[in-house]
Each structure stands twice: as structure tokens, then as C-alpha cells.
């Protein structure tokens, strides 16, 4: 089956995440034509329910992406504040 | 106010100042803006010096006692020197302890004898600030609580239940467990109908009968986490029986009052009674039959 996704609405990131979770059950190939992405899925028996489930996941990842974009900075600040005073190991002690 | 402290009294008050940097909507002792630190300091020193050595606890209060700055810490030192076996309770909005040096100083002068009672009006900053009458109060109080916790100074959280916060009592309990897990115990207090509480009655007065269910849910929750809780100022007849053991004799001896019908109550001895200073009487009071 083929799914068509508008790349103006759903980013590569979102699509990749959904594909990641499906990739152990289905063979999925992706083709980009301008701002339209085509996914060819092999192995989906119930197309109706696959489509529904796919777009549900896609929409959820889009929401998560918005939250992530808006909170990236504060998250970094939070972790820096919480764990930033490590003075018992120095860079020199961990030689690359 | 007392002329001399008593060993077992729960109202050995060291009144530090009438000034306050909060303006709580239900304050039963509305603040006065006059420089009274010295006046009270002198009185307090003589109270301390004349107090029996076996005095159990003294209560440092106001207004906001921490506004006295150095004089407060000096006072605590004097208590420690003269009454080494006496616990020192400080009633404070905790805001000054947002500065951790100040919290550290309190630990230094008070040692293991000092504990702090801090009011929390809501888990939500907006509500707390509105009730405290001061924007930014929540943030400073929360940071103050954390610094007191870091210093190992025991903290009692005091929640005065009013119309503006009674709907979130359970959420407050959850908040306390998650975010103020180091707190030593919580006191859930019915309002005294005097001062601002009377003045602002329209916005903040609420009968205990209206919030008892939420209160019980909050107390049960904290009890399940082994966080000690007490109920202050609510007569036993308004509380379900299984919550009676949370109620304490919270009203200062000199302002407790009972009604005539209380003479017939089997539980009068254990009951906190009512505030003699309150303008109104709680609804729904009735004596427990003597056969109880």
C-alpha cells in the first residue's frame, strides 16, 4: 500500500519516528517528490486500520515535536543546573 | 500577651514586631507599619530572663519576625543561652530564607532547638500570591523552604483553609509530598474570624462543614505517606471520628472558648474548642452524647 504525506505539515523527523516503530514488522520505502512524500509499505494486511494507526502516531509525534522545539532550551538549562557542578572528575582524567 | 512564661504553655510568645512583608487576606493580626523592633526586643529579653528553665517551648512570632534581621538572631542566641533546654518555634513566611546564608545563620544560632512554622496557601503560585497579598511571595517561600530543608532545620507547613484554596487541598497534599518531601509535619488550620478574615469575609470566609471532605482526603493521603499531619482549630463534632486523632489542642489557652452546649459533650476535654476572638461561630456544632 502507499501513503502520501505532505512534508509541509509533517517533518522528516516525525515520519522517521513512526517508520522506526513499524520497521520490524513491515518493509517501508520512502520517496520524496518535492514537498510530497510517498511511503510504500509491504506486508500491511488491514490497510484501513494501518492507515488510521499510522496517522494517529504521526499526529502524536508532531505534537511531541512542537513541545520539544519549544522546550529544548529550558531542558538544557535544567540539566545544566541540576548536574553542572561536577568537580570530582576533570576532563584530563578522562583522556579520549 | 504573657507577663511570665509557663513551663507547659503553648503560648509563650516572643512577639518581635507588628510589621509584615506579606498581607494575607485572612490575617488575624493585621500588620502595622511602625518601627517597633527595639521596643519588643527589650520586652522579650526580660521575658526570657525571667522564664523558668524547664520551659518547654517559646514561640517567636509577629507580624513577620525575620524583618527584625540581626535583632532576631540575637534574640535566638539569648534564648539558647538562658533556656538551653527550650525549643524555639519561629512563625515566619519563610521568604527571607530564600537567601541560603540566612538559613545557614539560623542553623548556627538556633542549633538543634529551632524549628520553623511556614504558611503555604496553595500549590499554585498565583493563588498563593493572591492569598498572601504579595506578588513573588510563593517563589521566595518555596526557595526559603528548600534552604531550611538543606540546613536540616525542621519545618512545619501551615495551611490556613479558606474560600480561595479549599478546592485544592488534596492537590496541595500531593504537591507537599512530591516537592516538599523533607517537611516534618503539616498543620491544616481553620480560620480565626477576626482581623482581615472578618474584613474580607465575602471573598474568603468558608465554613469547615464545606471543606471537611477535601481536608480528610488530603490528610489521609499524607498519612499514607507517613507525613504527620494535624488539624488545628476545628471542633471534634465537625470531624468524622476516624480523623479525631489528627485534631490537636491548637488554640492558645487564653483565647479558647466553649459554648453552653459543650458542657454536655463527652469529648469536651480533648476538643480544641473555638476562638474566643472569632466574630462568628462555626455552623453545625453539636455535643457528642455522654454515652459516647
Amino acid at each position, binding site marked *: 500500500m502507499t501513503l502520501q504525506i505532505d512534508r509541509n505539515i509533517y517533518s522528516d523527523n516525525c515520519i522517521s519516528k513512526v517508520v*522506526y516503530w*513499524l520497521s520490524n514488522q513491515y518493509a517501508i520505502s520512502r520517496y520524496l517528490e518535492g514537498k510530497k512524500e510517498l511511503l510504500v509499505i509491504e506486508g500491511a494486511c488491514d490497510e484501513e486500520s494501518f492507515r488510521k494507526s499510522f496517522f494517529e502516531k504521526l499526529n502524536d509525534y508532531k505534537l*511531541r515535536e512542537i513541545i520539544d522545539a519549544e522546550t529544548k532550551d529550558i531542558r538544557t538549562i535544567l540539566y545544566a543546573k541540576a548536574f553542572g557542578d561536577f568537580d570530582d572528575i576533570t576532563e584530563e582524567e578522562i583522556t579520549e | 500577651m504573657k507577663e511570665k512564661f509557663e513551663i507547659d504553655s503553648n503560648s509563650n510568645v516572643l512577639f518581635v514586631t507588628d510589621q509584615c512583608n506579606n498581607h494575607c487576606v485572612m490575617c488575624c493580626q493585621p500588620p502595622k507599619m511602625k518601627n517597633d523592633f527595639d521596643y519588643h526586643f527589650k520586652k522579650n529579653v526580660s521575658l526570657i530572663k525571667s522564664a523558668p528553665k524547664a520551659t518547654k517551648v517559646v514561640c517567636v512570632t509577629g507580624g513577620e519576625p525575620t524583618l527584625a534581621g540581626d535583632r532576631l538572631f540575637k534574640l535566638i542566641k539569648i534564648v539558647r543561652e538562658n533556656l538551653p533546654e527550650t525549643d524555639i518555634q519561629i512563625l515566619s513566611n519563610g521568604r527571607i530564607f530564600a537567601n541560603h546564608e540566612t538559613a545557614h545563620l539560623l542553623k548556627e544560632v538556633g542549633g538543634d532547638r529551632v524549628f520553623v512554622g511556614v504558611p503555604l496557601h496553595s*500549590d*499554585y503560585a498565583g493563588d498563593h500570591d493572591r492569598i498572601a497579598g504579595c506578588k513573588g511571595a510563593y517563589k521566595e517561600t518555596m526557595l526559603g523552604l528548600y534552604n531550611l530543608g538543606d540546613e536540616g532545620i525542621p519545618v512545619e507547613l501551615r495551611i490556613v483553609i479558606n474560600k480561595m484554596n479549599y478546592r485544592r487541598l488534596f*492537590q496541595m497534599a500531593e504537591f507537599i509530598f512530591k516537592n516538599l*518531601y523533607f517537611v516534618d509535619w503539616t498543620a491544616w488550620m481553620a480560620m480565626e474570624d477576626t482581623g482581615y478574615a472578618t474584613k474580607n469575609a465575602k471573598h474568603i470566609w468558608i465554613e469547615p462543614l464545606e471543606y471537611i471532605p477535601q481536608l480528610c482526603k488530603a490528610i489521609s493521603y499524607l498519612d499514607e505517606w507517613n507525613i504527620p499531619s494535624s488539624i488545628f482549630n476545628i471542633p471534634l463534632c465537625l470531624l468524622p471520628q476516624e480523623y479525631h486523632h489528627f485534631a490537636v489542642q491548637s488554640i492558645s489557652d487564653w483565647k479558647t472558648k466553649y459554648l453552653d452546649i459543650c458542657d454536655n459533650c463527652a469529648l469536651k476535654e480533648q476538643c480544641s474548642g473555638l476562638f474566643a476572638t472569632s466574630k462568628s461561630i462555626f455552623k453545625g456544632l453539636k455535643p457528642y452524647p455522654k454515652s459516647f
Partner: protein
Amino acid sequence: MKRYALLPFNFTRISGKEVLINELGDMLITPIGSVQKIVDHSLDNEELYKSLVANFFISEELLPSLLDVYASRLRLKKSFLDDRTALHIFVLTLRCNQNCVYCQASSREENSIHCSMTPEMMETSVKLMFRSPSPSLTMEFQGGEPSLEPKIIKYGIELAEEINQQECRKLSYVLCSNCRSLSDELLQICKQYHVLISTSLDGPSCIHNKNRGREDSYEKTMAGIQKAREVLGHEYVSALMTTSELALDYPKEIVDEYVNDGFTDIFLRALNPYGLASDNEDWDKYNERFITFYKEALEYIIEKNKQGIFFREDYATIILRKMLTPYTTGFVDLQSPAGTVNSVLIYNYDGYVYASDESRMLAENGDFTFRLGKISDKYEDIVYGEKVRNMGKIWANEALAGCSDCPIRAYCGADPVRNHSTQGDMYGFRPSSFVCKKNKAIIEYIISLMIEREDEVMPIFRSWLR
């Protein structure tokens, strides 16, 4: 409603609700559609709005004024890291006096002469253990069957106590034993040093014996438990079980066995894919059946609690501790950063240090990926060596594909060793991971109980955590 900024959080849907989980692992149950409204700034529920602010899901300032509190709470969640390695497992021998069908230890015959730790090796290992800066150290003796080596146990404990005169750590001891041959001498050592005995009890005798490859196993184990309880006290003997394929059909019987034997908790463990146990081919099927087994057993345990019998399921308790309390947890398998090395180190009878219990089992099968060095190597070379640094790049689930954006990440963990042994690389592939499926099913099940039967289960869950 005021203007607000988002704070990091994720969400999922369980039991007809939207479950929001923030960076601290705090959970809020909300109506479906709440996340969209929060993101769109079209929230219409004032009480929900206040809860979101109070619980660090949104902030009324761009930089939260309680950032210090937020950070302090995050630090507390990860404070298991502060202590560094606290659990030190000493695998004394491969010799064993049983023949369990799922043996993860690849045990050898009781009378085999090799495969045991020498006193010199014990001394080197104990000294290495004290190089860990942790203020508390647990020495856990494993095997094979470690009680077959009482002299080495005595030597190890006494040496640790001697060194501790200077070190002043908090020492504790655990002996993992099948309790078949607990000599009086060994029990006296256990009594003197407050050694906790951790034994294996798979269920009623029919299940236990079938699993253990001996007909008298149940009898001997029960007798051993009894003896240990008499000498050491009831609270010094604990039991855990491994869910063999046979056990999958008997959740209630197994719980009943534990309750009747006077235990107050059980750890419902799935099989590990190691040692002899990996002959079990159909892991998919086993995993599915285990999840069903777990739910039935947990349900039955809840029933027991409702009847007034205090009985705790340990795996659920660890997850609940993460969900409901601000505190950290120390369970090695559900941590991020991973428990390997950070929380546990293994000193093996073969003279080498391993990253985790499962790492040395891999070695028995010829895979030395997680052998970190010799027990005689320098501590810094072991824990900061190249192998550990490589693990360090991929041992936090905050940074793994499939995990980093998983809504229940805070309640789960990373296990590079398990990934390697089942999937061929440490990074792992979540969609086909059995551990992921199992953990997700159990965590979501627990959340669904909290949503659908709040008044019934919450007091019980809290009683497990007190």
C-alpha cells in the same frame, strides 16, 4: 488564563485518558485532547491549568522562578549516581548442587574441582571494591551455589570488616543461596554479620522441583529457609522467583505459596536469555504469556491486600516508587544511566571484573564484550576504561532511539548488556526488544489500574512504598 511557556513533558493515552509525564517523572491524568489544548494555548479548565503550573508542566515565566527547585528534584531522581557503585557481586564458584532448567549461571557439578575463587582473588577483589567511593557497600555472594564455599565467604566478610575499620562505610552482605546446604558454621557467620539470605522459590513443590532438576529440591529449600529463619530471624531471609514456562500457568498458586510460607513480598521475574535458559526458542510467545501471567499475579496480590494481608510485588513497587515519589531507585535493571558499572560491579571466580551479572554469563558462552579488566587492574582503568566509556555513550535512555521520546521513559531504563546479548549491539533496537515490550506492558498496566481503580489500588500501592 495567563500566558505561559511549555516545560518538557511527554504524553500517552491509557484507559481513555491522556497521561502527561514531565521530565521529573511526575504524572498528571487529564481528559483526551488536553495536550492539544495546552500546546494551542486554548485550555479552558482552570484547575487543570493550576495543576500544570504547580507540577512543572508549564511555566508562567520564560525562566521558571523555581528553577532551583526543579533542578533539585531532578538531581534527587538521579541521586543513585552520587554514590557510584554500591552493589558488588562476588561470584565465588560455578559449582552447584542443583540443576535448574533455566540456570543463568551455567553451573557445573558440585564436585568439580575448578571454577572457584581463591583467597588471594577474594583479597584482591575486596580491596578493589573499596576503591568505589560509595558510602555504602553491599557484598553479594553468588555462584553456582556460594554456600558450597563457606571458607571464602567467611574470609571475604572478615577482610571487608577489617578494612572498614579505616574506611568507615556502611557494609551489608547478601548470600544468594538455594538453602540446600546451609551449615551451622555458615549460618553463624551470617548471624554475626547480619547477612541477608536471598533464596529462590519458584512456587509450590510441583513447579519448584520441576524447575530445579531434583525431586527433593522444594523440601530441602523449605527446610533451609526454616533453619535460616530460626538462626537469623524472619526478616533476614527473602525469596525471589524465576518464571519458567511451566510457572506461567500458575500465577495464583505461586502467590499463595509465598503468602503461606510467611513471605511478605515476591519479585515476579521473567527468564533471562542466558545460560541454559536460552535454549527456550520462542521468546515472543514466552514474553506474551509472561505479561499475562504478571497481570494475573498482580491482580491476585491486590486481592490479598484487600483482604488485609500485606503482600508486595517488588517489580511494581520499583515502578511505583518512580511514579509516585520524588525519590530515586536503586534497582539495577531499570535505571538511566544504566545500572551496569554505575550501580553494580562483578568480581568473577575467573579473576576478571564484569560490568553486570549478565555480563559474566555472556562470558561463560565465550562472549567477553563486557569483561572490563582483571581484578588486579587499577580501579580507574576499569571504570574509566575504553569499554565503559563506549557504554557511557549509549547507556542513558534519554538519548536512545525509541526511548528518548517514549512517554514512559522516566519509569524505564537502559540495558546495553541485554541489548547486546539479544539483538547483537549495545544500542539496541526498541521495536523488537522483549524488555521494551514487557516493561511497556507492565508500566501501562499499572497506570491503567491507577486510572480505572484509583480508590481501590492507590492505598495499597502507597502501603508498599512506605
